[in-house]
């Protein structure tokens, strides 16, 4: 086999989450109330535009969640087959493989976006016209950035411009293909002609905000396509202190953000749903105990509790190095531990909410009707209470995502976030924050992190708003 699949724990959880999402989708499709709620989300233009963007982020994250160790190519030529196959220590993902040029073409240090030369002057030896070595201080030529231009660096602008134009053309083509496909789909679903379908897609109050999806897709393609075409030969967002491509880093950060934002809820949900429902349904001493538990936990300021827990986890990891086969596994486990800690410290809010709602629900007449039948408490909780709480859970889930992504950055900055070797928005900002003070200023790393993080969180916030508007029974009636 050319590679050895590596299954990291966070991969398992990510794919599990995807599975859960599919199951949820299937369940939603069966229940008419859920279906109408999701249809309302589908009608929301801001919601669908942001969902498109989130989907793109999710694809990046999922590609980055298929890990393997490549087989080391033995130098022995013919005899290689006899040797036991050896695999690299380095764990790569499918995304890494796709981004191989970005990952491997490391410069020495900082370089500006699309630069052909380094950012800082260096003493370089140039063979003068007389054949002697001359020492001058200049920006050295980059090893990979714009290397295809050879000596003719002045051609860069023209090259960039032509690539951008090509890319825009390609983007338009791709977009048109998608738009036609959508139209065809709508036409078939409606049993109408193309012209009507086209008009339907672009109508402002359609059943599904196709216009928003297509607009978001257009924006995405128009931005991503030039970047993709330029990235083959340039460092589109420059390189950082150790010469690593910044575009590669922001793309890798996406997965970290997704894991933090999603896996945490996986820890949080069972705790808050179970305890909240139990407290609200049984009341009495169960309620007292659970209330005590969450008041106590929530009375410790979040950052401090996380700091204490992360410190202790660090001690645990440091004193047991034998637990981890590779550095990636170690970083991965630390990431999961962080999710776990965030989950344990943040379930209290949702738990309190669900407890209150359960208290209200249990007084409703359909619950009493079930009790009059002698239906067991467990069954009442499962059939009557939890399904009627799910809208709160879904709203909390999407609302928490963006705040968790933001929290990761802060925690990593404070030093209690992800492993320093793991690429994340937090570590990127942390590494780059002093660069603004350099002369001349290094701005690209920070800007790229800002731009990607902002678009991810903004999309998540807008999507969360759309979901909340669609699922909140108090808001659901209003247009």
């Amino acid at each position, binding site marked *: 086999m050319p590679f050895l699949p590596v299954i990291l724990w966070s991969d398992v959880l990510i794919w599990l989450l995807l599975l859960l999402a599919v199951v949820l989708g299937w369940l939603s499709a069966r229940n008419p109330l859920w279906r109408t709620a999701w249809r309302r989300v589908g009608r929301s233009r801001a919601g669908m535009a942001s969902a498109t963007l989130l989907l793109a982020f999710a694809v990046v994250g999922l590609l980055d969640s298929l890990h393997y160790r490549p087989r080391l190519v033995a130098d022995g030529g013919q005899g290689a087959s006899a040797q036991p196959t050896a695999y690299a220590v380095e764990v790569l993902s499918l995304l890494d493989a796709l981004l191989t040029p970005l990952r491997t073409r490391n410069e020495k240090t900082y370089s500006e976006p699309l630069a052909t030369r380094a950012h800082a002057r260096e003493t370089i030896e140039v063979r003068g016209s007389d054949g002697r070595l001359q020492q001058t201080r200049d920006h050295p030529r980059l090893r990979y950035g714009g290397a295809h231009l050879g000596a003719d660096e002045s051609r860069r602008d023209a090259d960039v411009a032509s690539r951008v134009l090509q890319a825009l053309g390609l983007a338009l083509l791709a977009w048109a293909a998608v738009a036609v496909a959508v139209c065809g789909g709508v036409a078939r679903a409606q049993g109408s002609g193309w012209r009507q379908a086209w008009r339907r897609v672009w109508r402002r109050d359609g059943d599904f905000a196709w216009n928003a999806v297509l607009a978001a897709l257009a924006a995405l393609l128009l931005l991503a396509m030039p970047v993709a075409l330029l990235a083959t030969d340039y460092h589109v967002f420059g390189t950082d202190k150790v010469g690593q491509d910044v575009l590669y880093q922001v793309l890798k950060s996406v997965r970290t953000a997704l894991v933090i934002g999603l896996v945490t809820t996986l820890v949080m949900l069972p705790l808050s749903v179970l305890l909240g429902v139990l407290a609200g349904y049984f009341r009495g001493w169960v309620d007292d105990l659970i209330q005590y538990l969450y008041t106590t936990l929530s009375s410790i300021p979040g950052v401090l509790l996380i700091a204490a827990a992360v410190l202790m986890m660090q001690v645990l990891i440091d004193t047991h190095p034998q637990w981890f086969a590779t550095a990636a596994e170690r970083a991965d486990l630390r990431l999961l531990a962080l999710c776990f800690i965030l989950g344990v410290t943040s379930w209290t809010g949702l738990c309190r909410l669900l407890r209150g709602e359960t208290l209200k629900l249990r007084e409703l*007449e359909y619950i009493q*009707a079930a009790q009059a039948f*002698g*239906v067991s408490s467990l069954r009442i909780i499962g059939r*009557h209470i939890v*399904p009627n709480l799910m809208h709160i859970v879904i709203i909390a889930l999407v609302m928490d995502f963006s705040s968790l992504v933001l929290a990761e950055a802060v925690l990593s900055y404070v030093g209690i976030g992800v492993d320093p070797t793991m690429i994340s928005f937090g570590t990127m900002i942390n590494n780059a924050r002093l660069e603004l003070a350099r002369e001349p200023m290094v701005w690209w790393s920070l800007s790229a992190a800002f731009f990607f993080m902002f678009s991810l969180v903004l999309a998540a916030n807008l999507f969360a708003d759309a979901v909340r508007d669609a699922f909140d029974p108090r808001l659901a009636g209003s*247009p």
Partner: protein
Amino acid sequence: MSAPPSQHGEELLAVRQLRVAFAHGRSLLPAVDGIDLRLAAGETLALLGESGCGKSATALALLRLLPAAGRIVAGEVCFGGRDLLRLPESEMRAVRGGGMAMIFQEPATSLNPVLTVGRQLAEVLARHRALGGAAAQATALELLLAVGIADAPRRLGEYPFQLSGGMKQRVMIAMALAGEPRLLIADEPTTALDVTIQAQILELLSRLQAERAMGMLLITHDLGVVAQMATRVGVMYAGEIVEEAPRAAFFSAPRHPYAQKLFAALPDLARRGGQLQTIPGQVPSLSAMPAGCRFAARCGHAWELCRQQSPQWRQVAIDHRVRCHLDDGVASRGRDGGSTAASGEAVAVVAAAPALLAVDELRVHFPIRRGILQRTVGHVRAVDGVSLALARGRTLALVGESGCGKTTVGKAILQLLPASGGSVRLLGEQLGGGARSAQRALRRHMQMIFQDPFASLNPRLSVGEIIAEGMRALAVGGPAAGRRATNTAAVAAVLQQVGLPAEAAGRYPHEFSGGQRQRIAIARALAVQPDLVICDEPTSALDVSVQAQILNLLATLQGELGLAYLFITHNFAVVDHLAHEVAVMYLGRIVEHGRVDEVLRAPRHPYTRALLSAVPSPRLDAASEYIRLPGEIPSPAAPPAGCHFHPRCRQASELCRQEYPPPSRLSATHVVHCHLYPPPGEAD
């Protein structure tokens, strides 16, 4: 359009072709469709209609207070010589509260909870009468006295939550009067109140109106309230006014088929034991208004023209006009259309059958916890020694005002609440305690139907699942093998029993209207083949026409299946219509108990008498004088010593203040707890 101003005085309000619509997405749904109204000073125009007919939207449109989605599309509202719809907002504000004031349905939420009564009143005085400081205080006090609030100086400094429901509505009225309006709009002012409080408020409103010569636009769904209050009546249906008449003409000969049906659907003694007339179908939804007469689809007399063309106004008498294509001949066959079954027959089967349910001295007390350690310092005696007996095929109505503990009795019988004392026996077996399996077996003999058809069905389950739940839990229909198939068949059967199609099983509750949901709730109860059904106000959330359908259904089911009903209600008309026996509750105890004709025709307890006299009757010949009940129901946490009713009773004696009266048996079936009727043993 030709209705002349009535004899009362100068014209106050003239509404012409008012259209109101609600924005829904990008479309506008018409809620009020071109109505005309005229109102003179000193006159009360009652706008009568069922829920969703647009009567509240009309009232709010007059004040331009429609919610954000509401739009006034067209029309003219002439008030004091000006068209209100064309006034700038700042001038309109002077009209609101100053020229025209409004009272809302829900006094509990319509007052600002964090401001004192005095401040809320002073606000209006400052706005419309430029009164401030001591003058405002004095005027506010006068207003509170005018609306009959006891202890008025203290109430000025109190917050709404410290007042009872009736007092809150009095404060609302005082606030409405504070700007000295010439027109008072009262939107269902007594719907949220108990019947004795309703009587107080209605009396207050008519007194104030007479004193101040105000015009009043009274919006209500209650024919009894209309009969008592109105000078003229306008009947609304689906956004249109379909009939307009002086009170006497309307109550003696309503012309529009809808109005006639409304009367026919009212339960009362005349149709006792028989079937009520119902209006089939439902009010058309805003988004799908029929082109012709809007009532055509539900009208028994509809003919071709009705479905094609909307009828024009037709004058049928002085001041009496109607929008209907039918001519007089058809329209006059009216109120006696209902089948009048033999009334004596049902009553004749006197309780000879053995008791199905026997409740003995049932008590339900809720602890009150106070202080640092939350110790129990007292008990709310929600139910305090209630004894009942009910035989198969009989209906016992448990009546009383809110807070008297009647619902608690029902829930305690069903074991939804733990009893603090006493016993409940069903089929001779003790409920509560004992083996779980035996208890479970007993459960299937009794079921409950709840008040709110929207809260009593789980929105996430299909109708089939809802109905099958009880069968599965109580293992009705044999052991597990092949139960699914039998269940499906059983669900279809029970749906058919309540008049719903079998395919309803696959649908979800939100697809059904209120009346249909109540049918589903009945089907759910019937599915386990109970002997006893506890009905907790099953029709109080429904419109009159739908209520009639449900009452008919309940009566039919009783006839077919021999069910016993414990019917918990505050509506005497319903009691009169279907109960065999009546028990009247006051503060957790039964004060009077007997056959329906005994209790309703010859009430003995002063409370029962007051209660009955307070019910507004939807006829002209109703006895107008009613027995005023001072004050409101005391808290069940601290019931008055002696007879609980003595603080509100005119006939109370020293004995009443000291001792709770023992039962006095007036006949074999009629028992009353009152010192006025000493038990025969002690009488002499």
